[in-house]
């Protein structure tokens, strides 16, 4: 089993980072009725871990008896019936799902399926919590309509159901939904926290960590604990015992994005744009989410960019990212960004060096 999974804390007490949050959550569920919760924070900061631990805290071990279902729902949408395929993870007390998987039909999930689930009160009330929990992942990817439909559900069925929402960025969750929840911000762990965790794992695994090695991994991870642990293990698989100057391998797709960035910086021409398009397609086809590509690409470009251009380039990246969400064909927007960048950068080069 992978270390990330193996050493994931199962209870709120065992949490290594965000202990304060964990303690608060514990108090929240033990002492009072639990409100709707919205967990947000960058990926790899421990939202999901906290949620699972929280559920366990609420319902005991039975929260871990989960079954996975991937079934097709028939939703009646006005004149026609829509088939929606949805994977749910559920125990007797909670259901976890990812409504944004349904793409632009996500509102049907919210309107029909989630409502349906929320309506049904759990059967046993003796001594247990009189509600069930719906865990919704990636709410920030929900369309506006879906988020709107969520509002009413949250209020109407709050007696029988609590929602735990989880997302990367709360800014993409509508105000209305946010105000109905207790917002819990899970910040990215600090590097020393990551180092602490890595050392903990190293000790458990009985590994010799050269000094500074964990710190290097932590630095490379971009403050994502998950990333750090994964690359830690990757290093372990690649070479053990560790050496101090061991390469910490980047992710394949990240490497690929860096390549694209390098291509763009090297030459700005229609031909290059065309090649870049091919590479972008490849990333997209490999299921790398377009927002991630764009963000990463921007980061890579910024690394090599003259500071006077940074602001402008960031502006355009944000512009196109926003438009990408409004649109459907991500490649068009990423390509537009690349074209824009090329034109800006080339203009800059010519202006500077003639």
């Amino acid at each position, binding site marked *: 089993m992978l270390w990330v999974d193996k050493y994931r804390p199962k209870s709120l007490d065992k949490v290594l980072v965000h202990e304060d949050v964990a303690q608060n959550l514990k108090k929240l569920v033990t002492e009072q009725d639990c409100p709707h919760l919205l967990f947000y924070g960058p990926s790899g900061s421990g939202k999901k871990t906290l949620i699972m631990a929280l559920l366990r805290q609420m319902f005991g071990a039975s929260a871990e008896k989960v079954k996975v279902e991937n079934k097709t729902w028939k939703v009646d949408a006005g004149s026609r019936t829509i088939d929606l395929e949805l994977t749910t993870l559920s125990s007797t007390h909670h259901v976890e799902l990812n409504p944004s998987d349904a793409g*632009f039909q996500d509102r049907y999930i919210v309107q029909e399926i989630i409502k349906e689930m929320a309506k049904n009160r759990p059967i046993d009330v003796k001594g247990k919590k009189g509600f069930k929990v719906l865990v919704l992942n990636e709410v920030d990817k929900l369309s506006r309509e879906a988020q709107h439909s969520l509002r009413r559900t949250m209020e109407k069925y709050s007696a029988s159901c609590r929602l735990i929402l989880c997302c990367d960025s709360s800014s993409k969750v509508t105000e209305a939904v946010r105000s109905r929840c207790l917002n819990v911000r899970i910040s990215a762990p600090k590097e020393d926290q990551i180092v602490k965790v890595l050392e903990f794992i190293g000790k458990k695994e009985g590994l010799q960590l050269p000094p500074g090695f964990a710190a290097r991994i932590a630095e490379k991870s971009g403050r994502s604990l998950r990333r750090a642990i994964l690359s830690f293990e990757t290093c372990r698989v690649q070479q053990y015992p560790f050496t101090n100057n061991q390469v910490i391998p980047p992710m394949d797709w990240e490497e690929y994005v860096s390549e694209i960035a390098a291509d763009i910086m090297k030459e700005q021409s229609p031909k290059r744009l065309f090649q870049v398009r091919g590479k972008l397609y490849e*990333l997209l086809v490999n299921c790398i989410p377009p927002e991630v590509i764009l963000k990463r690409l921007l980061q890579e470009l910024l690394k090599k960019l003259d500071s006077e251009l940074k602001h402008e380039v960031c502006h355009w990246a944000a512009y196109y990212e926003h438009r990408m969400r409004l649109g459907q064909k991500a490649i068009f927007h990423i390509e537009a960004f690349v074209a824009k960048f090329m034109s800006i950068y080339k203009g800059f080069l010519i202006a500077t060096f003639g």
Partner: protein
Amino acid sequence: MQPDIRKWFVKPHDKSDDNGKAPKPAKPTLAIPGKVSTAKDASPSSPVKSLQGGQESSGRRKTSKYFASDKQNKEDPTEVSEFTAKRKAKSDDVKPSPVKKSRKVDDDDDDDFVMPKTEKSSVETTPSKKLKSGSGKGIPNASVKEDDVVTSPKSAGRGRGRGRTAGGRGTKLESDEGNADDDEDAKEVKSAGRGRGGRGGSAAAGGGRGGGRGGFMAYGERKDPPHKGEKEVPEGSSECLSGLTFVISGTLDSLEREEAEDLIKRYGGRVTGSVSKKTNYLLCDEDIGGRKSAKAKELGTGFLTEDGLFDMIRASNRSKSTKKEDPKKQVDKIATSSKASPIKGGNKKEEVRESPQKGKATTHASPGVASSMRKKPTVGQSSLPWTEKYKPKVPNDIIGNQSLVKQLHDWLIHWNDNFLNGASKAKGKKQSDSGAKKAILLSGTPGIGKTTSAKLVSQMLGFQTIEVNASDSRGKADSKIEKGIGSSTANSVKELVSNQSLSVDFDRSKHPKAVLIMDEVDGMSAGDREKIQVNEVALEELAERVNGDMRMALNQLQYMSLSMSVIKFDDVRQRLLTSSKDEDISPFTAVDKLFGYNGGKLRMDERFDLSMSDMDLVPLLIQENYINYRPSTAGKDENGLKRLNLIARAADSIASGDIINVQIRRYQKWQLSQSSSLVSAIIPAALLRGQRETLEQGERNFNRFGGWLGKNSTMGKNYRLLEDAHVHLLASLQFNLGRSTLCLDYMSLLLKHMTDPLKTLPKDEGVEKVVEFMDAYSISQEDFESLMLMSKFQGRPNLLEGVQPAVKAALTKAYNKGSKTRVIRTADLITLPGIKKAPKKRVQAMLEPVDVGDAIVENEENNSDDVEDLEGDAEEEKPKVDIASLSSKGIQVQVDAKKASGSKKAPAAGGGGRGRGGGAAPKRKR
């Protein structure tokens, strides 16, 4: 069409001029008809003239009728009102109608009246010229003017007005322009009207409006002409290059190749693709030493630079002006030719004019004589459309496909022998022999003459044809019933052909579409009894435009003859361009046109039509290909910055198009569809139109099919695969994250775990480790493969590289063996005896963790049932054992169980999970 419309618009201004100079248009009008009639009396040729004079206007009217669907619609109402106005005018001499109407009337009067007027002045000398001036709307300008100048100052004034009109229309008729210029030189009379005309013309010379055929793509990539657009294209006489054949090679100095081609064709030259003996000139500015120039040298073909070409054209101009005779001679020639068959022509025209003429007749004070006289000659036959009228009468008339016709003929001759005299019914064995077939299937695109040839052949052989086509009832006598065979055989024939909608007797043998468009056209002009002077190049163009459909060609020709008697290249072009929207436009053609070198001259509505030809595909094609175009708007662009800027703008626009499209599709805001095509197709194309170039080695210089569709479907497939893998991972309960996390973070490490041991460890050990790992995460072999697939990037080593095939095989084997003992976590991982494979999708259930406290007894029951159902296998006991033996955490239990017992059946895991029962059960059914 276009020019007509313009005329309406331009006229008013001229009108005012005219009115100023010739303040009483009404009176001359009166004079004309009288004139006409007298002329008629005077000489045999004059009727024709006058007819034609009349015809011109009628032709114009016709025009608008023809084009009911067009913009012209707007014209119609006014015209109607015009008529009424005229009628009123007739009754009371004063014109009571609104200003606009009266203006219109003036217009008409003017048309009618200018011509006869000029006629009057120079009837004897160049009679037919006048005709043309009447009907030809342009060319005649010159002659009209000449005459005008000669005759009277007043008419000179009118001439000027006309000249201006010509300028307005001039966009299309450069060659006319040339004429006008000639006159200018000759006469030294520089009227304002002419000056304007000249300008209009030269503007047009820039590139006749009109639409790219997509032809340019056929050429490989070329550089831009170094002095693009810097030279002025000269104007020459319309036929100055006639009879000459050109081949264009390499990059010219200032013209795009298409422009050069246009130019040559306009002046009557021919452009061919390769050098042959017939080639007169090889047009090239730099000797690139290609095959063409080599061949040209070999054949001794003359080389001509672009400047040379211009000089030639200019020279023609000059020479013409020096010997003024020339045009006249030509004119005479035309005149005689048109006289040659005056009656026929006359008839024909008569008929066409008939109805409008009536309206007109009432307009003028004394039209009675003329109109009645005109009506008379109308004969039944001439009222046929040309397509009918000029249908070949004998097989030899048939143009093209002669051999097939011959075949048909032969077959028909032998038909009797084969079927009537000999064995009356066809024998199976005979089938292979073409003569022995009972029926022939004629097939081909519409208008190439299937029906005609069949009919002719049978007629010639004395069969009586009975035509039954789709318009007849299909009930009983379907298809054409065999003609001469007699009633006795009719039934059998009917049986044979009952399902053919075309003909029995001539029926059908596969025959290829007539490809030689040129042949058809040449034949057409030769056989053209209408005596319309048609310039050959124009016909070629026509033929090209109608895509080989002869029927359509004739229809077009007939139509054009109504409005003009001399049909020129640009006329044809113009006409067909406007009608081209009626044809189906494929998305590719549409994109070609939008990006084409003429794309900038398309009207907005034309662009919309093009981009709407397929609302989904056109934007995708544009998106796929816009990078490939070198924008002609960028002009000089050494470092490519301008182009990049344009590309960035286009890309932005395309992206906006995507956003609009979402609004349209998701929220049914169809009112946005125009904006959508504007933003996603028209703007990018307008920014980047120009020459297409290739970006990759070996790429063909054609627009690629939009890549998005393919990529999107691959992406969809990969997402499905990923989802499957994700579900399996989730089912392992080791993992509870989203699939994007799986893809972004986990992927590399997972794959490393699954491939590294295979490479580094000894075979068995490695395989074992990998299988163990896969089991822990319930990764199936399909998942393994799809994860592999998704981690592949171009130019990256495959992760499985370096893994021995033997090892791979061992892995598969080990995995399959393991599947016997595998913990069942997801329904689709279960292999049921007798059932092949769970369908990939609709993974329904999974169960899971074993656990402690809950109602074990119940579980057991469920379990055993389930297991039986599932695997039909008797080892239900196991779970109990496992469960009993373990009292700790669910997950731990599983793993341990597997390790410890080395085995047994899924139920181990199932134990606890089943308890949850109800939900799990349905999914099991498979």
